């Protein structure tokens, strides 16, 4: 495309810019539009099924157009800007929130040739862009000039910033194994999907994404049934809709990222084909993987009870972060020792010997990656075992202390108000 434009006599820089812009806009808006149409419907349907309801079924076939009805409602509602609000910031905040999510799609590899911009620092890019979302929340809460909004925002930001830590550390694992921060590079390096080699990292990434996107069981930020809405309490109409959309898209985005980083993105049989066919295959794989993960997310979100904020924080800082740090160290250690030797394996495969034929069946890269993956898996299992032991011990200890407390406590202390002793004597 760039060449075509340059051939038309365009300035090469402008041509590059325009091509990138088009690519980014196309990719980014795709995520948004696709999701608002089908994703929202899916969310409602799954939630309904879990709760033994029907879900949307009136507007369009299977209620598919329910989204548009909602959208119409959002747009037509009155757009209020509170009088004491800091107007420019109040209006920018929803844009910032949605931009932070949408911009991530710019580096999302849909297929081998289908990516908005294959930045060499792609992983770092999406981390930094995602951190803008935090800012949007904070600005929204502050500019509303409402103390509930502010408190909600502070709470949300505390949670988001905290859960960013394990997320970033878990992203380091695929980056480390692939040796690149480019998103396409990470996908291409996954001859064995990383979820099989480093399931713990995948678990931490998934869990911290739940916290990061405010899905259950970490949805204290929103907690519709307990709080007034939180940081977006003063928002109405389309601006409120933008926050909602940002949040929904963010959760799907995190699933897509999970698919890219740990489940091999567009990889699958036929995805390496040249031209449109490969792109199509890759696209299909990418989306099916994302959708599977997304269904998992919905499943968890609709069944697991909500945590308190202190439990949420403790879970993050006392469990996820140390676990992932240990994991990262172990992975780095193993990855340093067992570096896959692609050349040697490839040469064997070319040689035509029996071993080479076996290699060719599985693919030489797969074979070359195998020892490392197995070692990593073993290490992960060992860590998991250690963690399990620790958890078991701590639970036991806690139980014992609870029992001891219960045994030691005089019965009347258990009551709300101490029973007054009747006066004796006089």
């Amino acid at each position: 495309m760039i060449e075509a434009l340059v051939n038309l006599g365009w300035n090469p820089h402008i041509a590059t810019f325009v091509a990138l812009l088009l690519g980014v806009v196309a990719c980014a808006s795709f995520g948004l539009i696709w999701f608002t149409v089908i994703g929202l419907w899916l969310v409602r349907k799954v939630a309904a099924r879990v709760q033994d309801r029907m879900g949307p079924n009136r507007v369009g076939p299977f209620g598919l157009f329910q989204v548009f009805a909602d959208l119409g409602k959002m747009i037509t509602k009155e757009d209020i800007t509170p009088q004491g609000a800091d107007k420019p910031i109040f209006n920018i905040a929803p844009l910032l929130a949605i931009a932070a999510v949408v911009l991530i799609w710019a580096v999302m590899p849909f297929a081998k040739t289908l990516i908005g911009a294959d930045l060499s620092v792609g992983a770092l890019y999406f981390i930094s862009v995602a951190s803008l979302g935090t800012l949007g929340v904070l600005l929204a809460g502050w500019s509303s000039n409402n103390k509930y909004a502010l408190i909600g925002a502070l709470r949300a930001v505390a949670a988001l910033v905290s859960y960013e830590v394990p997320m970033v550390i878990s992203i380091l694992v695929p980056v480390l194994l692939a040796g690149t921060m480019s998103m396409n590079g990470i996908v291409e390096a996954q001859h064995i999907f990383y979820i099989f080699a480093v399931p713990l990292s995948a678990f931490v990434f998934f869990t911290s994404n739940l916290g990061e996107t405010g899905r259950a069981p970490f949805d204290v930020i929103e907690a519709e049934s307990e709080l007034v809405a939180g940081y977006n309490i003063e928002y109405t109409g389309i601006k409120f809709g933008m926050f909602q959309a940002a949040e929904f898209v963010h959760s799907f985005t995190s699933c897509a990222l999970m698919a890219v980083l740990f489940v091999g993105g567009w990889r699958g049989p036929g995805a390496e084909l040249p031209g449109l066919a490969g792109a199509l295959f890759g696209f299909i794989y990418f989306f099916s993987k994302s959708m599977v993960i997304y269904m998992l997310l919905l499943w968890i979100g609709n069944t697991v009870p909500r945590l308190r904020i202190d439990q949420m924080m403790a879970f993050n800082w006392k469990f996820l972060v140390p676990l992932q740090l240990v994991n990262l160290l172990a992975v780095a250690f193993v990855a340093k020792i067992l570096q896959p030797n692609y050349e040697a394996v490839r040469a064997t495969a070319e040689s035509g010997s029996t071993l080479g034929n076996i290699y060719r069946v599985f693919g030489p890269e797969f074979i070359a990656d195998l020892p490392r993956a197995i070692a990593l898996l073993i290490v992960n299992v060992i860590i998991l075992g250690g963690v399990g032991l620790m958890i078991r011990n701590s639970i036991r200890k806690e139980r014992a202390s609870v029992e001891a407390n219960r045994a030691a406590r005089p019965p009347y202390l258990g009551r709300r108000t101490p029973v007054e002793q009747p006066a004796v004597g006089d």
Partner: protein
Amino acid sequence: MQTVDWVQWLAFGILTLLTIGSALAVVIDRNIFHSALWLLVSLFGVAGLFVMLSAPFLAAVQVLVYMGAIVILIIFAIMLTRRLMGLTEALNTQWWVGGITAIVTFLVIAFVLFQAGQGANPILVREPIAALNGRGVEELGKALVDPAQYALPFELASVLLTAALIGSIVIAREDQ
């Protein structure tokens, strides 16, 4: 070469305007919260300039560290001390001396640059190499952990961060 130059100049101009304009707003705006937001924009402009200088890693880190962490920290601090946000007077009594000093400093720097440019100082007129062939990030990573280069300062930097972390917790902690 001349044909593409104006595009770069355009980008440079926009980014400069963004950076300098919002930096000015940072120091002029009376509302400190707005100041912090302007700081954000200014830092974003600097990140853009980093991209122009083929340092995409630094640009990403700039966005991540400054905009994602430092500015949020600053905003938190503003909120925690917000009883004073309604300050009527943003500037102190010596603001105009400060202004003169800043201007004079700038003039001195500009003068030195101008002088050096006149003398065709080889450092200033050297052309950049065409492209780094995407090796920047990798090389940066290697330089940071290479014992012959910056491994030791790098480790020290992490110690510094830890010390700052502990120190700030100790300082800001409420006395028991």
